[in-house]
């Protein structure tokens, strides 16, 4: 009932571990599969690696999580090892996430990671906390500008044969236009959405809480934004969508699929419901589908558009 097709791959269920959550080591990713994830996205890497920001990097309230980890990663070569080690351990498809600061380097890091043969590549075109950093000037803008996003996708597709998902940000004028531009440039799928820009301030200490001052907001408060973005993207492109943002339970996942997602990204939900959230979402989806007369996840995709 929950088996889901994503391009040329089968997922045991549509719950995909989103990038940046628990993806720091192959053994942890294997653990996430045991907790019920249908596919696993690695933590985004770039060519040389990054230290990331100082703490506080992640905080949370009951409604939202806010993070500016700063894309810390050990670099693509160590990430290749993670993907290789993971491939030996798991059946779930692996989505290798990458980022860089220019279309050419995006292509370079993608072809390097592709050597380790993940099932898909995800282009993090839209991390919200790097735009002003030196060497990453304009970085946050790849996904807010259709032309810039398309340029990255085009260069990556020239360099890499693997199916490529473009991960888009809600921090833009029209996500539908950006998605269309990516599709036109050869993207095989869209991941929507990345976190929304946000900030929290400690009043007594008169200071933004995150060391980077602002960061990306995820969690339940992001869901309506994500559902609207996925709805818009579905209306604009033919390629499949991984709908990500604020999904906590089976009903949220169904909502996301009805908006147009073929699979559903799960990230911050681990905070609210624990590591087994992936299995819980599958069970809840199954129960709801049974009760409401659905037999396949295919019937859900885009159902709210009919």
């Amino acid at each position: 009932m929950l088996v889901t097709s994503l391009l040329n791959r089968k997922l045991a269920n549509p719950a995909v571990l989103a990038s940046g959550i628990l993806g720091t080591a192959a053994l942890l990713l294997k653990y996430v599969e045991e907790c019920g994830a249908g596919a696993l996205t690695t933590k985004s890497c770039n060519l040389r690696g990054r230290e990331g920001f100082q703490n506080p990097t992640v905080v949370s309230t009951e409604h939202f999580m806010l993070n500016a980890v700063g894309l810390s990663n050990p670099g693509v070569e160590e990430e290749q090892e993670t993907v290789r080690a993971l491939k030996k351990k798991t059946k779930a498809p692996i989505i290798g996430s990458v980022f860089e600061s220019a279309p050419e380097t995006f292509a370079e890091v993608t072809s390097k990671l592709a050597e380790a043969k993940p099932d898909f590549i995800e282009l993090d075109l839209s991390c919200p906390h790097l735009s002003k950093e030196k060497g990453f000037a304009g970085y946050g803008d790849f996904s807010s500008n259709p032309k810039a996003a398309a340029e990255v996708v085009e260069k990556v597709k020239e360099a890499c044969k693997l199916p490529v998902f473009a991960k888009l940000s809600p921090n833009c004028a029209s996500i539908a236009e950006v998605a269309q531009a990516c599709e036109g440039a050869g993207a095989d799928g869209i991941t929507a959405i990345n976190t929304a820009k946000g900030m929290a301030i400690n009043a007594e200490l008169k200071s933004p809480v995150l060391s980077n001052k602002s960061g990306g907001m995820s969690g339940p408060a992001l869901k309506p934004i994500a559902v609207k973005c996925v709805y818009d993207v579905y209306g604009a492109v033919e390629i499949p969508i991984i709908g990500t943002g604020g999904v906590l339970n089976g009903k949220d996942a169904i909502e996301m699929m009805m908006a147009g997602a073929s699979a559903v990204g799960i990230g911050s939900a681990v905070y609210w419901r624990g590591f087994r959230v992936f299995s819980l979402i599958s069970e809840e989806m199954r129960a709801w589908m049974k009760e409401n007369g659905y037999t396949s996840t295919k019937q859900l995709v885009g159902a709210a558009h009919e």
Partner: protein
Amino acid sequence: MNDSFPKPVLGSLYDVPETFTVTKTRQENYRIKTVFFDKALPCSPGQFVMLWIPGVNERPLSAYRSDPLAITIANVGKFSGRVYVLNPGDRVGIRGPYGNRFELHGKNVLLVGGGYGLVPLSFLAEEAKKRGVKATVVIGARNGKDVILEKDFEIAGCRTFICTEDGSRGLRARSPDVAAALLAKEKFSAIYGCGPEKMEEALVQTARKHRTPCFVSVERHMKCAFGICGACACGDRLACAHGPVFSAEELEGNPDFGKTFLDWGGKRQSYE
């Protein structure tokens, strides 16, 4: 935390730093201080808090006492140096408590600490006394000047053994070796260890040999502290959410324990 820890979606769940004010500090040795705050934070021995100094950093620190909250810090780096010089009236951000705790098992326990690993063990010794559990402590340090919290264990009524690497105070030995010697002569209901990971690894091996339940606290770099980011991975476990306290059984076959950890950027580094 177990694998399915349901957290309320609505309620008093705030993992953002709350403001705490320093009320007093106490010098423990030439470079270690205990900092007391103005409020209680319900927490147990082994649990930790994330202490934030705006513009500097936020780091995990083991709770020394819960009511009022207190932490003990060694002045060894930029962040700890800033915590070390906190004065009464200074304000910091605190979130937590995080992680699991040292659970007392049986009526005759052995506490084995190295360096500032003694901090949560002092908290545990106080609880053992309250619950009528007999406790023996091995205080390990590099040299005599580094011995800390001796008085706490005396107040808690512990039988105390001191050992230093250079023999300048107590026995010239490492704390797991003193524990091994004790275990060869006596039976303990459980062993609790906290200190450098190599020391803990040796302790776990000794405990296995003597078939005594053993629990150690695993330290890693931490970012979220609530099981999301993966910075504190130890094998397929997270130090923040599954730990920091692990039993010897849980650590059996863990490829990272005593061997490797992730640095701030996520690169795997060796303890060698």
